[in-house]
């Protein structure tokens, strides 16, 4: 039986797909929202420190299915390996309604003005594809605000002198703080830094019909059992469904974007939850599957007029894969710090995002989420053995007396870091899998080391009796902050989509998610992904219906 034609089909119900679905449905367009995962609740995802989206040694709790979704990872020596979602080099995000927003730590950062003009600010380093965004912060500002108010953000950035101009404060006050905050804040001030409360997509007071955070220890990587974390699964997607214009289909794996004889997108072919191949025709097709899977879907959508995949005439689909190079430092103190008050991360400084001499960009630095015991076993300073009595002593002595400060260093994009489709390996549905390869630009590594030094200095100022750096390797980046594989730009020869996220040589095909990020800021990217979703969806509705949503 043929499926009823709709105005729009969206592939992926994550941070972007959920917001786009809501905006289009509110604008009166009929929408089918496809999601390969399922609609999970906290009751489906136990608080399991070995099986979650952060620590997945025994698997993950929010998809994708371990057996059905392999990828191929190529290391810096050219060795390739089939990897499963629970492995680090897989760069897993999630596969469920809400996508990564279902289990994330929920930091809700706006990028700074310079983050949209990296090439203008710093020049283009050799070997990189660094470029400005075709849109400015000012254009996106109303959409940031909308994301903050509609999805829900708590925190207080008023003490951060580096934040970009904003019209309204955050809708919710920050959460009560933990002991780390009380130690780190005066230390940062002594160093002349400007500490403040991290903005988070998390209720600190009742908001949107949901209760505030209960400050438990299980946050990043876990589903919130009191529904205080604000993801699209408990905000935008229910709102989309409530309009009556949106149908959500879960367990649906997209196979390809279908095109007609003239090469124009006509809909999406997908395998439904029972494994049947279905064809959903639509006026417009929106790919919102996150940087790796969005690129894979376009590359797998080959046709006579698009032999290398849709939107890939100039070979840019899949290139510039980036995430964040997380570095920082551990510090141990001669008194107890652990107070079991979550989420743990609550204080940040943006003093190092830009303006460090000799560096390109930088990172926001913040204290880490609560470390569960297993996450501490590898946190060893030089000289402490990996096993035996000394290791156990180290755990016992310092677990409750440590603070970690980490920062997501902004990566300098390179064309060689990329997503391709593997010529041999297929997934459960017989579709070629994503193949990830490439490393990081030397300037990225340089900045990341400098950020670790800054983190260490902050811990020393806070009175740590011993500190040591936590550095990153230069292998393929991606992970939950994956971005860049369908970058936006004005020139079709050096980008995949235009400033409204429309694929250059198509009039009805869009990529709306982190893939379009030209650069990824020195911040967690989710609020920017949501803001772009509001921006692009607003344009689509305006064009199709003349309405403003």
């Amino acid at each position, binding site marked *: 039986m043929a499926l009823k034609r709709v105005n729009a089909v969206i592939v992926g119900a994550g941070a972007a797909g959920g917001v786009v679905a809501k905006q289009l449905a509110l604008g009166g367009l009929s929408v089918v929202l496809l999601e390969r995962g399922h609609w999970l609740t906290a009751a489906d995802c136990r608080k399991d*420190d070995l099986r979650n989206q952060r620590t997945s*040694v*025994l698997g993950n709790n929010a998809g994708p299915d371990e057996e059905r979704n392999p990828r191929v990872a190529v290391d810096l020596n050219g060795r390739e390996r089939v990897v499963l979602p629970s492995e680090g080099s897989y760069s897993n995000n999630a596969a469920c309604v809400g996508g990564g927003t279902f289990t994330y730590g929920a930091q809700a950062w706006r990028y700074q003005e310079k983050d949209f003009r990296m090439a203008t600010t710093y020049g283009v380093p050799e070997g990189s594809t660094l470029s400005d965004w075709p849109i400015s912060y000012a254009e996106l500002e109303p959409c940031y605000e909308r994301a903050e108010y509609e999805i829900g953000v708590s925190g207080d950035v008023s003490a951060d002198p580096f934040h970009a101009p904003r019209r309204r404060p955050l809708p919710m006050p920050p959460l009560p703080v933990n002991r780390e905050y009380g130690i780190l804040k005066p230390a940062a001030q002594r160093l002349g830094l400007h500490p403040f409360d991290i903005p988070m997509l998390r209720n600190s007071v009742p908001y949107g019909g949901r209760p505030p955070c*209960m400050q438990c220890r299980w946050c990043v990587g876990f589903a919130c*059992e009191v529904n205080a974390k604000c993801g699209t699964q408990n905000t935008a997607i229910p709102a989309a469904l409530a309009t009556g214009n949106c149908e959500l289909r879960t367990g649906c794996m997209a196979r390809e974007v279908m095109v007609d004889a003239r090469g124009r997108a006509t809909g999406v072919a997908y395998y439904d939850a029972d494994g049947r191949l279905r064809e959903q025709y639509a006026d417009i097709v929106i790919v919102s599957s996150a940087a790796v899977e969005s690129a894979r879907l376009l590359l797998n959508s080959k046709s006579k007029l698009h032999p290398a995949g849709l939107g890939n005439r100039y070979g840019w689909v899949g290139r510039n894969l980036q995430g964040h190079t997380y570095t920082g430092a551990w510090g141990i103190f001669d008194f107890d710090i652990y107070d079991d008050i979550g989420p743990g991360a609550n204080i940040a400084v943006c003093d190092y995002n830009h303006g460090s001499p000799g560096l390109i960009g930088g990172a926001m630095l913040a204290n880490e989420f609560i470390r569960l*015991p*297993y996450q501490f076993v590898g946190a060893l300073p030089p000289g402490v053995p990996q*096993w035996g009595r000394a290791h156990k002593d180290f755990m016992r*002595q310092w677990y409750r007396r440590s603070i970690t400060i980490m920062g997501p260093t902004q990566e300098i994009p390179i064309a060689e870091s990329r997503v391709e489709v593997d010529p041999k390996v297929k997934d459960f549905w017989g579709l070629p899998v994503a193949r990830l390869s490439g490393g990081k630009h030397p300037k990225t590594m340089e900045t990341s080391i400098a950020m670790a030094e800054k983190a260490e200095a902050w811990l020393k100022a806070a009175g740590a009796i011993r500190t040591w750096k936590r550095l990153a390797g230069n292998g393929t980046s991606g992970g939950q902050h994956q971005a860049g594989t369908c970058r936006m730009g004005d020139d079709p020869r050096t980008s995949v989509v235009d400033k409204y996220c429309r694929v250059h040589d198509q009039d009805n095909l869009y990529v709306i998610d982190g893939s379009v990020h030209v650069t990824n800021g020195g911040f967690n990217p989710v609020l920017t992904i949501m803001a772009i979703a509001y921006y692009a969806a607003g344009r689509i509705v305006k064009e199709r219906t003349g309405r403003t949503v």
Partner: protein
Amino acid sequence: MAIGNEWRYGLALDHLKAYSLRRRKFLRIAGTATACGTLVSCGRPSTPWRFLTAAEGRTLDAICEQIIPTDQTPGAAWAGVVNFIDRQLMGPYRRQQAAYRAGLKAIDEAATKFGKNFVDLDAQRQTAVLESLTGPAKRFFATAIAHTMQGYYGDPRHGGNRDAVSWRMLGVPVIPIRGRYRYEMPKQGA
């Protein structure tokens, strides 16, 4: 600090020691029983484990105990890390089954320089054997370290960290805070 936490969670060390002794005795008896079982049955030798043989289980138990030894608090053996690893070898670790079979054999072979099986060496010599490993055996040992850490410090529901012994040692509240409990209950209708 660690001592300060013991009373808080009602952990009686004497009780643990007694338990530990009982367990060792049990293992000896189980070992004997296994040996007898092998004599009378003609099929696969009986083993208390899902994947490991009884002998492999004993070797691995000793290796885990080396990785996280018993001191003033119980070590990996008491915490049931072998049970954890054995269970995962039939699940998420199943790609490592062959590595375990070969790795445990290699460690026993490395122990022959002292003229005994690994389990029969004293603790000092066991340490020496593990420190001297090279090549594939060394790589296997690195895997075993990671898995032992998971079994000892991870959630007890996976078969290790018995009585949340490591969390008590670290002073992490074992009883989760408010609202946690209902998610550990079976789902309605499931």
